[in-house]
């Protein structure tokens, strides 16, 4: 229904965003923030992520392709028809910049982000996630993301606990712990 009203009645866009905001306030904001800039390191920032990517992940939580006890119970309470709307809401929020915690490690991480590791066959992260780690429809925005969340996710790809992408599984297995730490430092500083 939401999608249809977006198409046929442009003025309804504001109304939809109001509705999205109220869903977010009731269901998502406690962890992800009303503006998508979560302040809790274990919960990802969603501001500025591509709406399609957010909608896709919500779908994966529903189907069980992506496993999370917390998110499974939350998405079960949502209407799947609202996924795109929620994606559009969070996608249109302004991401807050990250903070540099360790400039030296962040510098190593930047090098890794743009070059990968040729010897061990790790592709450069920027190939998919973009030169500003801005992400796109298929690949999530990583710029300014919490380092703790980034590390946790890369490790969950490595153990296959998060098994939604074959590519990240392979990448994470090839990365050393130091490389994971460094690239998370760089991204969280953006």
């Amino acid at each position, binding site marked *: 229904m939401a999608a249809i009203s977006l198409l046929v009645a442009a003025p309804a866009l504001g109304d939809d965003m109001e509705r999205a905001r109220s869903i977010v306030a009731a269901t998502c904001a406690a962890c992800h923030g009303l503006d998508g800039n979560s302040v809790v390191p274990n919960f990802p920032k969603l501001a500025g992520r591509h709406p399609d990517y957010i909608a896709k992940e919500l779908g994966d939580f529903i189907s069980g392709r992506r496993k999370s006890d917390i998110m499974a119970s939350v998405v079960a309470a949502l209407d799947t028809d609202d996924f795109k709307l929620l994606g559009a809401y969070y996608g249109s929020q302004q991401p807050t910049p990250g903070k540099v915690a360790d400039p030296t490690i962040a510098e190593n991480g930047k090098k890794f982000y743009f070059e*990968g590791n*040729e010897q061990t*066959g790790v592709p*450069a*992260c920027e*190939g*998919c996630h973009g030169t500003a780690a801005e992400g796109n429809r298929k*690949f999530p925005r990583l710029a300014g993301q919490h380092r703790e969340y980034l590390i946790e996710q890369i490790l969950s790809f490595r153990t296959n606990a998060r098994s939604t992408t074959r*590519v990240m599984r392979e990448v994470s297995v090839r990365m050393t712990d130091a490389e994971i730490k460094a690239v998370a430092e760089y991204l969280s500083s953006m």
Partner: protein
Amino acid sequence: MRKWLLLLLAMPWLAGPNLANDATPAWNEITGEKLLALKLKGNVARGEEAFEGCQGCHRRGATGSASGMYPRLAGQHAAVLIEQMADIRSGRRRNPKMEPFADEHVLTPQAIADIAFYLQGLPVPPSLGKGPGKALERGKAIYSRDCADCHGEGGEGNGAKFYPMVAGQHFVYLLREARLLRDGERGNANPDMVRVIKPYSDQDLEAVADYMSRLDKR
């Protein structure tokens, strides 16, 4: 556009699968998904998007890396690219570094065709990774004698026959693959090629790889 049309007309397997099966040599059996991808019409815009997943290694614009770890793909013949992607997926060409990124969970045969057409149309960038330049006369003599008949005087290759363009490819990559070919480790090698390269010394390989890396096909 014209280049593609000519290439399409020159592809014998497009006439029909029976002809393709009869005419193809054993080293490059055109069956299964390779045949499928070769027959599919590649879409450049879709190929550009699908290539996002490749450019972490092969880089934007498919320039490869100057270190020679990853080959340049820009301007390569679509048929050659499809052949190599299919052979890496099937394990005929052993490439454990790349295989997971090109497997069936990541790329459909249509995506292979799309990527190949996108890459074929990319401008060939200047050569980045050259050899030491100490034996270019020797390299030229070897190339003219043994290589030019198939790969072309200017290293342009021949898509209809699955002979890759070698001009402007990174030196270290050419040298590595030439060694694998000579030593029987490239899996999907053309036996004619292996026969030619078998007697080469390491110095011969280095000289001819250096010469090829300096051929300018732009």
